[in-house]
C-alpha cells in the first residue's frame, strides 16, 4: 500500500534580464550601495569564497550576498535543509556572475552585474501547477507536429523566437516519454475529476496527439515492414548533415547526400516506400498541407526508440485506447508490425541494407560480441519486455509466447537480465574506467522502461524475481541521480525497496518552471567538491538541486562539471523530464 507523499507548494525562481542600458533597469540600482557582508562563523558552506562576497541585502528574513561569481540567498528559517543556502549564477539566473549591487524590492531583488541586471522573484508554485506551466511552454514552443525534443531560439532567452523546425535523433524516445506523462495525466484526471470534466477532455486531446505523433514514426517510412523511423521532416525543414535521411517520392524513398550516407556508400540508394500511412496518423502532416511526397525521414533507428515506443504503446493502449477503439487498433497494428519485424530479422531491427541498424540488436550474435556481451543484460530485458507488451496489447499469446519462452528457456535471456552490474563492472576493469562514475547515462531510462514493463507484466514468480533482481542491478547507478522519473517506476516494480521521498521531493521542488537550457556556473563554486574522472574530465561530487545544475533530459550525467551539450540560452527542451515523473507519481498514488 503506497502512502502518498504530500508535495507542497514551493519557492521557484523566476528571473528577468535587462542588458546594460535597458531603460527598465531602475536608476537607483545603478548607484545602489550595499554593505559588505560579515560572514565570519557562517554556519553553512557558502557557494562563493567568503572573501569574494562584496555586497549584502535583506528582504524580510532572507539575506542576499553578492560575490564576484554569483549570488547567494540565505534563509536561515527554511523548512528544508537544501533551501537554506541557494546559489544563483549565470547564465541561468544572471547575465553574468560579477555582482555589483543587490537592491531589495519587496520580497524580490534587483541584481546589478557587469553586463546588466536581473530581477529575481521567488514564487510559491505547486507541483501540478509547475507541470502545467512546463506543458504550456512545450506545446507553445517545443512541439513539432506533436513531436517534442527541443527547439532552437533565434534570440537568447526569447521563447517567442523559436525556429519552426528542429529535429532530434531521439524524437521517438523523447516524444514517447512525453506521451506517457500525458497519458498518466489524462488517466489521473479521469479518475479524480471524471471523464467528462473539461480538464480531462483537454488532457485526452494532448495525450492522444502525442501518441499519434509517436505511432506515425512507425509508419512514416512507408516501408511496410514494421521498421521505425527516428524522426521525420517536412518539405520546408532543412535536412541536417547528421545520419541517414530518405526523401519519399511517389512510392520510393531516396537516400539523401550526407556525410554518413557517403561514408556508407548509400547516397542515392532508392528503396520501396509504397506502403500507406494510416490516414488518422497522416493527418498530422496532411492537415498542415503536406503530402507523403513532402516527407523526409531518418533511419538507422536505435533500441532507445524501440523501447520507448513499446512501453508508451502499452500505457496508451491500457489508459487511452479504452476510450478510443480506433486508436487501440492503430496501436495494435503498430506493435504487431514492429514485433514481427524484430522476430523476422533474428531479433534485430534491420535497415534498408538488410543489415541491423547500429544500435537496435537483441540477438545472441550481438551478445556474443565484446560490446554486445555487456549490452546483453539491458537488451535482453528490452526484447522480453517488447514481447510481454505485444501479448498484452494483442491479447494473444501464440507466436509471442513461443518466442518469449524460447528466449527465456533456450537462450537464457531472463538470466541475462540480472547481469548488468557484473558485466559492466567487468568491462570497467578491462577498460580501466570507474564504474559507476563513467557510465552511459542514456541507458538509465532504457533500463527503467524495460524493467518496469517486465516487472509489472510478468506474473510468473520465478521470472518476476529475476526481473526484479535485474532492475536492482541498475540501482547503484540509478541512485546517483535521485530522479523520480527513475525511482518511481522502480518503486512500483520492486516494492520491497525503500525510496527516499525527501530526495524526490527536492527534485520536484527545485526543478525550474522553464526548460530553457541555460547553464549554471559550477567552476567557481566553493561549496561543491570536484572529482577528476578516470577517463578525463571532471564531475561534481554532490548531486545539486536541479535548479543549480545543468539541464538535461533523461540522458545526461547530472553530476557534470561542465556541460557542452545543454544548448545554453538559445535552446528550450521539452517538459517531459518533469511531467513524466510527476504524472507517473500522481497516477500510481505516490503523491497527493
Amino acid at each position, binding site marked *: 500500500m503506497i502512502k502518498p507523499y504530500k508535495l507542497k507548494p514551493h519557492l521557484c525562481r523566476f528571473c528577468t534580464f535587462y542588458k546594460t542600458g535597458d531603460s527598465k533597469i531602475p536608476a537607483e540600482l545603478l548607484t545602489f550601495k550595499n554593505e559588505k557582508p560579515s560572514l*565570519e*562563523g*557562517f*554556519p*553553512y*558552506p*557558502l557557494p562563493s*569564497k*567568503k572573501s569574494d562576497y562584496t555586497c549584502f541585502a535583506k528582504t524580510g528574513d532572507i539575506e542576499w550576498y553578492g560575490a564576484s561569481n554569483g549570488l547567494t540567498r540565505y534563509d536561515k528559517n527554511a523548512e528544508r*535543509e537544501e533551501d537554506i543556502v541557494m546559489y544563483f549564477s549565470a547564465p541561468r539566473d544572471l547575465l553574468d556572475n560579477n555582482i555589483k549591487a543587490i537592491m531589495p524590492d519587496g520580497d524580490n531583488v534587483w541584481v546589478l552585474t557587469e553586463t546588466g541586471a536581473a530581477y529575481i522573484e521567488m514564487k510559491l508554485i505547486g507541483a501540478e501547477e509547475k507541470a502545467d506551466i512546463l506543458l504550456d511552454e512545450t506545446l507553445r514552443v517545443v512541439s513539432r507536429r506533436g513531436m517534442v525534443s527541443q527547439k532552437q531560439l533565434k534570440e537568447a532567452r526569447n521563447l517567442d523566437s523559436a525556429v519552426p523546425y528542429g529535429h532530434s535523433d531521439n524524437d521517438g524516445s523523447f516524444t514517447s516519454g512525453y506521451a506517457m506523462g500525458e497519458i498518466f495525466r489524462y488517466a489521473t484526471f479521469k479518475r479524480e475529476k471524471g471523464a467528462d470534466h473539461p480538464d480531462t477532455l483537454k488532457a485526452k486531446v494532448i495525450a492522444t496527439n502525442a501518441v499519434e505523433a509517436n505511432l506515425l514514426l512507425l509508419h512514416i517510412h512507408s516501408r511496410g515492414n514494421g521498421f521505425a523511423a527516428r524522426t521525420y521532416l517536412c518539405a520546408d525543414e532543412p535536412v541536417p548533415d547528421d545520419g541517414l535521411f530518405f526523401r519519399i517520392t511517389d512510392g520510393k524513398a531516396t537516400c539523401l547526400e550526407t556525410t554518413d550516407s557517403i561514408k556508407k556508400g548509400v547516397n542515392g540508394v532508392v528503396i520501396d516506400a509504397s506502403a500507406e500511412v494510416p490516414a488518422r496518423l497522416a493527418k498530422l502532416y496532411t492537415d498542415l498541407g503536406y503530402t507523403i511526397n513532402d516527407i523526409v525521414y531518418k533511419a538507422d533507428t536505435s533500441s532507445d526508440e524501440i523501447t520507448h515506443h513499446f512501453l508508451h504503446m502499452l500505457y496508451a493502449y491500457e489508459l487511452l485506447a479504452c476510450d478510443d477503439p480506433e486508436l487501440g487498433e492503430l496501436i495494435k497494428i503498430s506493435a504487431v508490425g514492429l514485433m514481427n519485424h524484430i522476430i523476422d530479422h533474428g531479433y534485430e531491427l534491420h535497415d534498408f541494407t538488410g543489415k541491423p541498424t547500429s544500435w537496435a540488436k537483441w540477438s545472441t550474435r550481438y551478445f556474443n560480441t*565484446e560490446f554486445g*556481451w555487456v549490452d546483453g543484460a539491458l537488451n535482453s530485458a528490452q526484447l522480453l519486455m517488447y514481447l510481454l507488451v505485444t501479448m498484452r496489447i494483442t491479447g494473444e499469446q501464440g507466436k509471442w509466447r513461443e518466442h518469449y519462452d524460447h528466449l527465456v528457456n533456450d537462450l537464457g535471456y531472463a538470466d541475462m537480465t540480472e*547481469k548488468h552490474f*557484473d*558485466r559492466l*563492472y*567487468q*568491462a570497467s*576493469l*578491462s577498460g580501466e574506467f570507474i564504474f*559507476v562514475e563513467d557510465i552511459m547515462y542514456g541507458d538509465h531510462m532504457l533500463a527503467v522502461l524495460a524493467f518496469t514493463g517486465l516487472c509489472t507484466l510478468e506474473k510468473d514468480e520465478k521470472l518476476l524475481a529475476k526481473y526484479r533482481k535485474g532492475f536492482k542491478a541498475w540501482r*547503484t547507478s540509478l541512485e546517483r541521480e535521485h530522479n523520480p522519473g527513475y525511482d518511481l517506476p522502480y518503486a512500483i516494480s520492486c516494492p520491497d525497496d525503500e525510496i*527516499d521521498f525527501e530526495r524526490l521531493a527536492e527534485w520536484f521542488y527545485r526543478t525550474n518552471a522553464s526548460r530553457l537550457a541555460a547553464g549554471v556556473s559550477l567552476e567557481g563554486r*566553493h*561549496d*561543491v*567538491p*570536484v*572529482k*577528476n574522472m578516470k577517463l578525463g574530465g571532471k564531475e561534481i*561530487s*554532490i*548531486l545539486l538541486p536541479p535548479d543549480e545544475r545543468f539541464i538535461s533530459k533523461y540522458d545526461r550525467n547530472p553530476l557534470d562539471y561542465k556541460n557542452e551539450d545543454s544548448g545554453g540560452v538559445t535552446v528550450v527542451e521539452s517538459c517531459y523530464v518533469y511531467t513524466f515523473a510527476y504524472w507517473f507519481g500522481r497516477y500510481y498514488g505516490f503523491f497527493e
Partner: protein
Amino acid sequence: MNNKLHIIGNAHLDPIWLWRWQEGCGEVLQTFRCAVDRIKQYKGFVFTCSSASYYKWVEEIDPELFEEIRKLVKKGKWVPVNGWWVQPDCNMPSAESFARQALYSQLYYYEKFGKICKTGYNVDSFGHNAMLPQLLNNGGMRCYVMMRPGMHENPEIPENLFWWDSADGSRVLTYRIPYSYCVNGKNDIDRELPLLKERAENTGHGMMFFFGVGNHGGGPTKGDMDYILELMDNGYEELEYSSPDDYFEEMCADRLDLPVWNDELQHHASGCYSATSMVKQLNRKAEYWLANAEKWNTVSAKISNLPKATEEFGKAWKEVCFNQFHDIFCGCSIMEAYDDVRDSMGYAMKIAANEENKAMLKIAGMVDTWLDGVSDSQSLNARHHCRNLKFPRPIIVFNPNSFEVETPVRTYHPSKKVEDSNGNSVIFQNVRSSRSNDSHLDTVFFAKVPALGYATYWLWHADSEYIGEYKAKSDVSANELTIENKYLKAVFDGETGGIKSLVTKADGVEYVGGEFCIPTVVDNTEPDTWAHNIFKFDKVIGKMSLKSIELVENGAARAVIRVKHTYGGSYLTQDFILAAESRHLRVKCKVLWQEALTILKMPVTVDGENPVSTYEIPAGFIKRPCNGEEEPALTWGDITAGADSRKGVALISDAKYSYDCPGNTLRLTMLRNSIFADHYSDRPAADFNYCDEGLHRFEYAIYPHAGEAETSGIQKLSAQFNSRLVAIPAGYHKGELPREKSFISISKPNIRLDAFKFCEDGSGDVMMRLCETDGRAVRAAIVCDIADAGFYADFRKFEVKTFRIDSEGYVKETDYLEGIVED
C-alpha cells in the same frame, strides 16, 4: 574457453613469525637477490612480491639490488602487488589504518616505480572484513587475491574467481587460492597442477598457480623452475609465466558470468583476535593517538607557526602498519618478537605524544586566559602554578572527536570549585589519585567541549581561601551494591559480583536477562595460538570467585563500585564507574593472569526473541548470527533481542578485538592465554611462556539501549571512549583565541572525521577523511574555517571519502592516495 594456468612465481615472506624482524629483513634481501637471478636465468619468468616495507628495506640496505629491481619492474618482469605496507591482518586494523597502509605504500611504489599496485594481495591473512572491497578500491586496487578461509573452513564463499561486494557498493574481482600460496618441490607441484588444470576446465576460466618457497621467504628454486620448464615441454602447454595483474586483466577480457559474494570472508584462525593482548592494546592506542595527534598538528599548524609534522606521522604510521602484519597483530609470533613490537609501537606513540603535546600547547598558548590581577605580587606559595590560591587555574580541555563531547576529565590536583569560561559551576569531584604523595587527590570534572575543539575550565585549588565551598548538584547516588543516576540504575549481586539488575529509569526496562559481568574462565587447552580448526571457545571451566565488593566513590561526578574476583593464582579488579548523567557504565579493569591455556570472558545477557549480534568492523558494522562462534570486531560488540520492543547491550572496549555470542549472551574475550606461536598444538615438554600471562590494564563500557545497535548512538560513544578528552594545564596569558572554540562543524551525526592532515606532497593542502557510520546514506555539510573551507558531501552507507582542500579552500574529492597519483 580459456583454461590457461598462470604461474605466479612468488615468495611469501613473513617478516616476523617464528623469528624476529632482523632475520625477516635479511631473508627479504636474500629472496629478492634470488628472484632477480631467476629472472635473469629463465626467459619469460615474472616474479611477484607484495609489501612496500620490504622494498624499503632493500632500498636502504642494498641500493644496487633495488636499482636492478626498479629496472625489472619497468620491464614487467617484477610485479609489486598489494599496495599496502605489509600483508596485514584484515579484521583488526581500523579503517584509517587501511587508509594509511595504502597511502604510504602506493605513494612509495609510485615514487620508486612510477606506478601503483593494481591488485590487493593478502594470501596468508586469516580473515577479511566485509568492507575490504571499499578499503581496497580507495587505495587504487580493484582486484584481490586471498586464500583463507579455505573451502574446508567456509564452503559457502565462492571458489576460484568471484565478485566480492562491500555494503557501500564497492567491488573487487577476487581470486581465492584453492590450495596453497607457496607450492614448491616436485611432489607438491605434481599434486597441485592437475587439480588446478581440472578447475580451469570446469570453470571455463584460467587459474593461478602460486609457486616458490615461502613463509620464511626463498621464492622459486632453480629445481622448481627447471621442473616447470620440463612440464611446459611435456603436455602442460597451458602453463604460462604470469602475474596476478596479468591474470586479472585476462579474466576481465573474457566474458565471464561470475558468482557474487557480499559478506565477510571468515573464519580461519578464530583465536587470533584475542591472543597476545599486548599487541592489540598497543595497536588500538597507537591508531587513535596518531590520528588525533595529527588532527591537532594540522589545526595548530594552520593557525600558528607550528611546523607541519606530516613526515613524522608517516614514520610513526609505518611502524603501526608494519606491526599490523598478520602474524604480529594476530599474536601468533614468538615471544621475543613482541619485545621488538613494543619498542616499535613505543616509537610510534612517542611521535604521537610529542606532536600532540606541541600542538596543544601551541594552541593553549594562543588562548586568552588572562585574569586581571593575576600578575600582582603574591607569596611564592600562592604563585606556584598548581597552587595559585587567589585565582582559578585554567585548564584547556581538547576534544579530538568531530562532535561535541561532554564527559568527565581528570587533572592531578584537588579542587574546591570548577567553573567553565562563562563562570558557571560545573560538576566535579576530588578522587583518589594514583600517587601516594601530597593530597592523594585528583580532580574529576565535567567538561563539555565542541567538535575538534577546546574549552577552558577554571579550577580553584582545594586549599584556596578566596572561594567559598561549592556543593555541586548531581544525579549520582550509590550504596554498597547499587549505583544510579537519572538514566541508569545498576544493582550488583553480593554473591557473584555480577550485575543482577541494570535498568534504564525513563522506561523502567530491565537489561539483565541472565549472566551479566560474571567473569568466566574457558578452557584453551586444545586450541593452538591461532585456534586452527576451532571456531568456538565454549568449554567453560569455571567462574571467577568474588573476593570483595565495595563502594569506593560516591560523589557528585561519579560513583564507583569496586569488584574483585579471583581464580587460581589470578585476580581481576573491576571499577564500575557511573558518571553523572551518563548512559553507560565504564569499567576499569586490572587483571593479573597466571592461568595457562585459559580464556577469560566477560558476559552480558539480554533476554528476548530473535537475538542479533552486531559488531563494529573497519568503516562499518556487521550483523552476525548468535551461534557462539568467536568473532573479530573493532571497538564494540552488541547483543540486541526482543520480539516487538527491541533492547540491547553493547560492550565497548579500548583494547580488545574478540567476542562470541552464544544465544542471548555476548561475551567480550578479555584475554586468551596460549603458548606463543603454538602451531597445531604440537607441544614438547617445556617451560612455556604464555602470551597473556601477567598484568593487564584496560577498560570496557556497558551500554544498554533501546532499539537496534546501529540506531543507539553506539558509534559515537565508542569513538569518544577510545578518543578521550585531553586536559592541558595552561598559564595566564593574553591570546588571540577565545576560551572555547571548534575547528570543524559536520552537520550529520553519522559522519565521522577519521583524518585531518596535510597532503603528503608537501603542497600544504589539507586532507580530510570522513566516514559514514550508521549504515544510511546522507548528505553532510562540513565547515572548517581554518582551512577556509565549507562544502557538502554525499555519502552512501558506510562510505569513506577523502577530500583535499587547497590553500584557497576549494575542495577536491580524492581517495586514499590524496590526488597525488592521479595528477
